[in-house]
């Protein structure tokens, strides 16, 4: 009896295993062809070309390379510390108290996170370049300008992660310490801070990761003086045509990012915070000044570059006007761009829509396979999340170097398709980060409940899983669209010069001298920021799913 039941079960599980791999084949083929193979062969080229590891070491020994590595790490460290310094007080003010305008302030402070890096680069360039609003500070093409831009970007990460954790701390916990005789400060040091430590570590690691992959910021703000590994890869490919050096640099970049990611994963795992039912209290009069003081630096850093960007986009010779915005609709002179900026914008929208569809299909496949934890699921998840551990620049480089010939009968040489594919690869892990926790948060007994009410498996999937996931899925699609719109690192390598996207058009305009070009770049940046911000707003609105607490 027992053995018969066991045989039946073994056979059934063998069948379901087969079905699992059959479904997994689709995302695996996609990731294999457009991610693992290109990136793998770039790394292999860096290590093994001509079976000569000595040449790889020679690249590493060059002063250019060493300085790029040191700059990458130094900028990332400074950016992380700066983000924590500005972000923690803001997280306290937003996560600890309830006050009027709090939701708006939080939304404002988390905006930079969703802005495309190229827009942030343009905004800081508008602020610090020689003719910029704060041009007299002499920060043009200095590491300080880049660090400020990194902080601008990542304060929002700290506010999101730490502020969220702070908010979900049961207020009773610190109060319990107070009733046991702890002063306010000791209650903070011994109860609140340890409870926040995992979130803090996680935020720091994520910020460090983002800082090491901020290609556009360094490319635009560093000019020719500040180079990180990513910009060095770009220069090696585009100016020196030294693919060998680029591959070695890509390898170094992968190692650094993987280390940051491993730390962030470890820090994130410790985050087991219960969400509180208690309500936040209003700040007392004295605390109100504290809240204002805590938010002021972050708000100033938020407003200055954005104001400068808008001001510069309106600045025309002898005053202000909409001339640069009007110029969005004409093809720039002297062949700076082959098309008008509005055509680049249309190209961007179409590309991003295609990227969203590709990433969406792959993400749904992957999510359905890994929502229930298993060892093979963990493997698939690791592969699908891998693009996050490889900077977009490396993804773009890989696609550029490997798909320049026909692979498996598919010829994508210089094809327009490479752009949405690259963007989909970049967006996929971020989509999964939204989707998978939501799928896993579905109470499994809800499925049992539906089944006991007579729902066959497909109706359970439809009425429970799909119904509960719909808002998150819609939000993650919008998110992927926004990511693809603002993507620059990979796009810069694969976009064809005659069909620029909005991001590559902005980069090109910023790199050209002349107030006309720069003004046009700023106007294009404002346009891109508005498009991306509104898509993200829609995504956020959709994300709040109903009754998740039950």
């Amino acid at each position: 009896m027992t053995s018969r039941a066991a045989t039946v079960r073994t056979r059934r599980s063998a069948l379901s295993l087969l079905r699992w791999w059959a479904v997994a084949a689709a995302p695996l083929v996609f990731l294999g062809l457009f991610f693992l193979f290109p990136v793998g062969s770039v790394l292999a080229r860096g290590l093994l070309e001509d079976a000569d590891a000595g040449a790889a070491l020679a690249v590493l020994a060059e002063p250019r390379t060493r300085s790029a590595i040191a700059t990458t790490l130094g900028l990332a460290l400074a950016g992380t510390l700066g983000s924590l310094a500005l972000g923690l007080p803001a997280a306290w003010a937003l996560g600890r108290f309830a006050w009027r305008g709090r939701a708006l302030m939080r939304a404002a402070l988390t905006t930079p996170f969703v802005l495309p890096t190229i827009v942030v680069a343009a905004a800081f360039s508008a602020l610090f370049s020689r003719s910029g609003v704060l041009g007299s500070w002499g920060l043009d093409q200095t590491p300080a300008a880049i660090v400020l831009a990194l902080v601008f970007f990542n304060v929002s990460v700290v506010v999101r992660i730490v502020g969220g954790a702070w908010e979900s701390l049961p207020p009773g916990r610190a109060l319990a310490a107070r009733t046991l005789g702890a002063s306010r400060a000791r209650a903070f040091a011994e109860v609140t801070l340890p409870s926040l430590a995992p979130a803090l570590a996680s935020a720091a690691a994520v910020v460090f990761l983002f800082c090491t992959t901020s290609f556009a910021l360094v490319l635009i703000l560093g000019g020719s003086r500040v180079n990180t590994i990513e910009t060095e890869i770009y220069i090696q490919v585009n100016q020196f045509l030294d693919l060998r050096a680029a591959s070695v640099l890509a390898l170094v970049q992968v190692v650094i990012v993987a280390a940051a990611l491993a730390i962030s994963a470890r820090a994130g795992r410790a985050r087991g915070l219960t969400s509180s039912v208690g309500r936040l209290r209003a700040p007392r009069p004295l605390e109100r000044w504290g809240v204002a003081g805590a938010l002021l630096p972050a708000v100033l850093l938020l407003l200055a570059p954005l104001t400068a960007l808008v001001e510069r986009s309106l600045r025309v010779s002898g005053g202000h006007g909409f001339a640069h915005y009007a110029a969005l609709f004409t093809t720039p002179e002297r062949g700076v761009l082959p098309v008008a900026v509005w055509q680049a914008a249309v190209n961007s929208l179409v590309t991003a829509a295609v990227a969203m569809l590709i990433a969406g299909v792959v993400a749904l496949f992957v999510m359905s396979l890994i929502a229930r934890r298993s060892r093979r699921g963990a493997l698939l998840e690791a592969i699908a999340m891998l693009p996050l551990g490889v900077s977009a620049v490396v993804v773009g480089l890989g696609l550029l170097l490997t798909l320049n010939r026909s692979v498996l009968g598919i010829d994508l040489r210089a094809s327009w398709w490479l752009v949405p594919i690259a963007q989909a690869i970049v967006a996929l892990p971020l989509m999964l980060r939204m989707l998978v926790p939501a799928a896993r948060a579905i109470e499994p007994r809800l499925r049992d409940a539906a089944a006991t009410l007579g729902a066959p498996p497909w109706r359970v999937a439809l009425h429970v899983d799909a119904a509960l996931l719909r808002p998150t899925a819609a939000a993650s699609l919008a998110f992927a669209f926004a990511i693809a719109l603002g993507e620059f690192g990979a796009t810069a390598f694969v976009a064809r010069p005659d069909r620029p996207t909005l991001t590559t058009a902005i980069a090109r305009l910023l790199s050209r001298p002349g107030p006309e070009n720069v003004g046009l770049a700023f106007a294009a940046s404002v346009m891109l920021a508005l498009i991306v911000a509104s898509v993200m707003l829609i995504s956020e609105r959709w994300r709040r799913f109903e009754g998740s607490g039950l």
Partner: protein
Amino acid sequence: MSPTAAQHSDGLTVADLVVTYPGRPPVEAVRGVSLTIAPGETVALLGPSGCGKSSLLGAVVGTIAPAAGNITWGDEELTRTPVHRRGFGMVFQDGQLFPHMDVARNIAFGLRMAGVDRDERDRHVKELLALVGLEGLGARAVGELSGGQRQRVALARSLAPRPRLLALDEPLSSLDAELRRRLAVEVREILRAAGTTALLVTHDPAEAETMATRVRRMADGKLI
């Protein structure tokens, strides 16, 4: 299956049921349990937590696959029948109401699965709301309900498709003592009125006494 059980036209028969959970060593949660429930009867399984009573219930309903043994209803062999085709309902410990549906849609869910048309469904939902004392709350979001109201909705929802057996897994244990006493009596009356055959799992002797027509004790994976 014993020949005496086969003579009954209806009723639940559990024979030599074993439930094991994988692990090293595997955990035997239910170790050879046999049990019959006659139509209209409410049997309570009473025992401390971890005695295997919820696993037994899960195997009967079909949410847990038994390692050995048989589950039959009358002459119908159900051991390998998937949950949704057994015609057994279940009230979960913490309700497990669908958070994305209002009260009426929760209650109507089983009727929808059974293909009952809309008018019939609406009429039936109204009756059930009255039965569990929640008239007029059909449009409420389930998040706005109190714990007691939630369990009433859960009961109405599981009764709606007229299951031939209703499994109740600690249905009142998340409620406070006073409410629990009152609801236990109510649930008994509702089950009697509907003529439902029921299998109740609880660790509260008073609750078992109040709700069940027969109480079986369980310890360490076996009936005693």
